[in-house]
């Protein structure tokens, strides 16, 4: 099972000091955070994409390439890449490039994006969000698998004899996860292609995640990619830890109370009950996280939200230390002990390449 962190790249005032980091500072900090994720033994770093303030990450592949150059094992991913407003041709090119530079340490999570004005800024209509996601991904999928592409669709100018370059590393396209909170069409899309399904999971009651994953698993089996429990599922999570759980609550409360997403609304206690948010000791985080598999089944990737709501860099790095030293080693062991042998791990470039060579040998034989 893969463990990692995902960042939405918000630039938020620290409510305890009133200090707002500059863009330059936050951008350098995210690189430090990603590098530290590898240092403490995490597997994945995923970065969001936004085209509006107060977020800095408009160009994730640039940031991820820079991180790739300074890390050895870290899998680089996104949370999410906007399949609606980006040109699928540019996504194909950018991520194939990143794949080469990072020696295959890249996958991506596609999302539609829910910021209304971003759609018209990029010449699109939010009401066509699902059709855009379907058509754009159909093209992206083709561009990575067919050398010369002739294509015509509803949303983009047609292509005649187009080749997306560079070609995917070893002719193995990056693995794709499809992210959605509550659109069954996206679970269906992920299942149809045999791709992964990533449930953001945080900020929402677990029932949403449960229903979406259940649908994805059923349809994954329906489309013949394996049994339902072999489908590739990723989950988000949100934690804040201290060895003493009361100190965790005390430290995190001002960030919670003023957070851009849920601040000035429900209490930390209510929100912890209604959503996967866990504020407490590493042991509490371990128990809560192990509980996720009870409603989604054995899954392949767990990402935590760590740097947000104005938490200073020092705190984020300390959280990563706790996650890497006390939480993830136990989770690795416990999840592995519970997982049946026929449930696969999350695909990586190495595993996808091996599978491709295997298929080739079978054909040759």
């Amino acid at each position, binding site marked *: 099972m893969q463990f990692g962190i995902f960042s939405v790249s918000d630039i938020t005032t620290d409510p305890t000091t009133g200090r707002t980091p500059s863009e330059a500072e936050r951008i350098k900090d995210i690189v430090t955070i990603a590098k530290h994720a590898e240092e403490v033994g995490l597997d994945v770093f995923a970065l969001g994409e936004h085209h509006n303030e107060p977020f800095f990450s408009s160009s994730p592949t640039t940031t991820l390439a820079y991180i790739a150059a300074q890390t050895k094992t870290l899998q680089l991913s996104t949370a999410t890449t906007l399949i609606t407003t980006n040109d699928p041709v540019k996504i194909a090119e950018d991520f194939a490039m990143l794949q080469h530079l990072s020696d295959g340490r890249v996958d991506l999570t596609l999302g539609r994006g829910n910021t209304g004005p971003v759609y018209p800024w990029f010449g699109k209509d939010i009401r066509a969000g*699902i*059709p855009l996601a*379907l*058509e754009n991904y*159909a093209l992206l999928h083709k561009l990575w698998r067919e050398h010369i592409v002739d294509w015509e*669709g*509803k949303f983009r100018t047609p292509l005649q004899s187009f080749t997306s370059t560079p070609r995917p590393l070893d002719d193995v396209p990056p693995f794709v996860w499809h992210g959605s909170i*509550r659109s*069954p*069409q996206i*679970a*269906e*899309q992920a*299942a*149809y292609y045999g791709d992964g399904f990533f449930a953001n999971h945080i*900020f*929402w*009651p677990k029932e*949403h995640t449960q*229903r*979406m994953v259940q*649908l994805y698993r059923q*349809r994954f089996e329906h*489309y013949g990619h394996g049994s339902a429990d072999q489908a590739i599922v990723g989950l988000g999570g949100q934690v804040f830890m201290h060895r003493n759980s009361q100190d965790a609550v005390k430290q995190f409360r001002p960030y919670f109370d003023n957070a851009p*997403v*849920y*601040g*000035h*609304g*429900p209490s930390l206690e*209510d*929100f912890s009950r*209604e959503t996967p948010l866990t504020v407490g000791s590493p042991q509490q985080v371990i128990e809560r996280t192990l509980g996720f598999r009870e409603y989604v089944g054995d899954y392949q990737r767990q990402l935590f939200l760590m740097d947000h709501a104005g938490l200073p860099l020092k705190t984020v790095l300390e959280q990563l230390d706790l996650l890497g030293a006390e939480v993830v080693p136990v989770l690795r062991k416990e999840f592995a002990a519970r997982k049946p042998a026929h449930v696969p791990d999350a695909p990586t470039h190495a595993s996808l390449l091996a599978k491709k060579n295997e298929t080739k040998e079978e054909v040759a034989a």
Partner: protein
Amino acid sequence: MKQRKLVVISAGLSQPSSTRLLADQLSATTAKAAAQLGVTLDVQVIELRDLAHEITDNMLTGFAKPALKQAQEAVTAADALITVTPVFSAGYSGLYKSFFDVLDKDALVDKPVLLAATAGTARHSLVLEHALRPLFAYLRATIIPTSVFAASDDWGANSVEGPLRGRIERAAAELAREVERREPAVVTDPFALTTDFAEMLKNL
């Protein structure tokens, strides 16, 4: 006897409240009228005051906590609604509007809804026409033609037997007839897949 579900939404804030009083009269009269048409109404009353915090939280977080979720599910599954708001600052109360702001926009489509309001004076009676009716037209509910307004004066002994009583009975009879001639409400599962992938691609 047919069984149908009536949900009554009362946005009154005081205890006792004239808004709740009107709601109770409307629901009891509707139940009686429905019974005469062979329909047993299972009545559930939702007091928005009890949900005020959860409604605000829903606005801020995008999801409903358990008690509000139950109320939303009851409204969605209802065969008919009676809603009563007090008039605040020449319109429906903010709490009343907020409840419908966080309700799924399709929850009331084709649902028979009886509109009612209370105020201190009859000068506010057009609130039903300029505020409530457009709201429920937007939500594509089936609005019962007679809406009921009660000012403080209407609660006087004579007038309870007079014009207000008459309007309650007319509105209740209209709502009961609407419920009687309809099939039971069908709740759609938002997580259910309605078209498969091939179909979705074809219909881009």
